[in-house]
């Protein structure tokens, strides 16, 4: 369980996070939902310690993280796996080396063959067995995300963070990635936080949802309650999302029709 308490962050004179508090539960996919530029990524970076909040604290299973002693922070970081928005694979390394990397760095006592077993297990888990020797530049967007997930879970992480795991993917691949994240969360009983602006993800995998609007938490609840919320900004967001999806569908149907006509 991860708790955040009263997180504030200002860049220059721009207030990005304005006192966000909340709880992210173990074994659940916790979503951070909100439009672009509302501070979701910054909040995620505050939680993992890539950005230092001006005020506020983060607690991992009761252990205080922000501003704690370096070795305690390092100890927690070893349990964190993170999937970045652009996957952030190391582009000088192939798939296998990418997944092996955190093992090499974090568990130096592990033997080479144990490491390889773990790498192959993780790659199989994300459906990429046999791609060991491919370079990141040879992978599609969806495959990169899968490698990113494999790298994140390789050292047996207890906390998994995903920043827009399905942005830039086609709808089918997006759903598959979402499902993979959810399965892994349940299977290993880890605490997962997923940043998204996609209502599809909410419907597919959102166990707990926190809605951010201009740096403030305006709503939280489960996906069953989200349609009945009385928060104006959230309803507008859902409405805009639905419009966009419908527009996309119409566009796709038109494209389909056009293709059919051509054939």
């Amino acid at each position, binding site marked *: 369980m991860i708790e955040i308490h009263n997180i504030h962050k200002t860049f220059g004179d721009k207030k990005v996070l304005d006192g966000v508090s909340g709880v992210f539960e173990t074994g659940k996919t916790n979503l951070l939902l909100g439009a672009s530029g509302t501070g979701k990524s910054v909040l995620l970076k505050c939680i993992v310690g890539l950005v230092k909040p001006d005020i506020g604290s983060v607690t991992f299973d009761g252990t205080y993280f922000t501003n704690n002693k370096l070795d305690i922070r390092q100890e927690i970081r070893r349990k964190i796996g993170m999937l*970045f928005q652009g996957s952030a694979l190391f582009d000088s390394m192939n798939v296998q080396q990418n997944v092996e990397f955190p093992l090499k760095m974090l568990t130096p006592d592990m033997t080479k063959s144990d490491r390889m077993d773990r790498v192959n297990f993780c790659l199989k888990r994300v459906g990429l067995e046999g791609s060991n020797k491919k370079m990141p530049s040879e992978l599609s967007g969806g495959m990169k995300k899968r490698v990113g997930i494999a790298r994140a879970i390789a050292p047996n992480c207890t906390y998994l963070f995903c920043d827009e795991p399905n942005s830039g993917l086609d709808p089918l691949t997006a759903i598959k990635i979402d499902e993979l994240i959810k399965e892994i969360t349940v299977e290993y009983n880890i605490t997962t936080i997923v940043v998204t602006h996609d209502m599809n993800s909410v419907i597919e995998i959102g166990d707990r949802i926190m809605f951010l609007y201009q740096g403030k938490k305006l709503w939280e609840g489960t996906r069953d309650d989200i349609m009945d919320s009385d928060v104006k900004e959230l309803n507008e967001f859902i409405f805009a999302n639905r419009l966009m999806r419908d527009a996309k569908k119409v566009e796709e149907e038109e494209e389909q029709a056009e293709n059919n006509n051509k054939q």
Partner: protein
Amino acid sequence: MLEHFGKYLIFLGSLVTRIESPRILFNRTIDEAILIGINSIFIVGIVSTFIGAVTCVQVSYNLTNALIPRSTIGFMVREMTILELAPTITSIVLAGKVGSNIASGLGTMQITEQVDALEVMGINSENYLVLPKIIAALFVFPMLVILAMFLSIAGGYIAGTLTNALTAQEYITGIRDAFVPYNILFALIKSVVFAFLISSISSFKGYNTSGGALEVGAASTAAVTNSVIAVLIADYVCAQLLL
């Protein structure tokens, strides 16, 4: 300007705090050294051979007095290349080649969040990424400069004998005349200083990139221009202090 310099010093400090395991650092340094060496050996070879050749031709053109022996040409080529041209020109070439490579590599890692990925794993990214580059440069630059010394003297030999400016025997007499071993040491000290400046300035510029592809290009350009200026200033300071 002063603020920049302060940030640069803080950056240098962060390289040596929270050091990763020596074994990892050693392996990373070897990798970087191989990269720097292999990527630069060809351009350094070409440039230094031609510099030796051109120096020889120009000295012989200026040396019209019949009372001065032709072997002086060989002597002049040696003095100019070992003391100044081999270390300084090689370093300026390397500022372009290695400096831009370091800056664009680190800049790309920064904007694609690869640096963040390292930090999340609890790795000190400055120490892991940058320190091996600097240490590798400190070792490899002097080796490249030694190579450049040999090749520029060889270039002078080829040019001198091909143009009949002097005989092979005269050239060899010339390059052995009044040899001061300290000059070689001086050149190597300079190359270590230049290696540090180029690798650390370029790393600083690359590591502090934010934005997109355009900023990576800008960081790379800034790395090369700043490194070249730093090398030339350091060249002057070294000459004042050490000669």
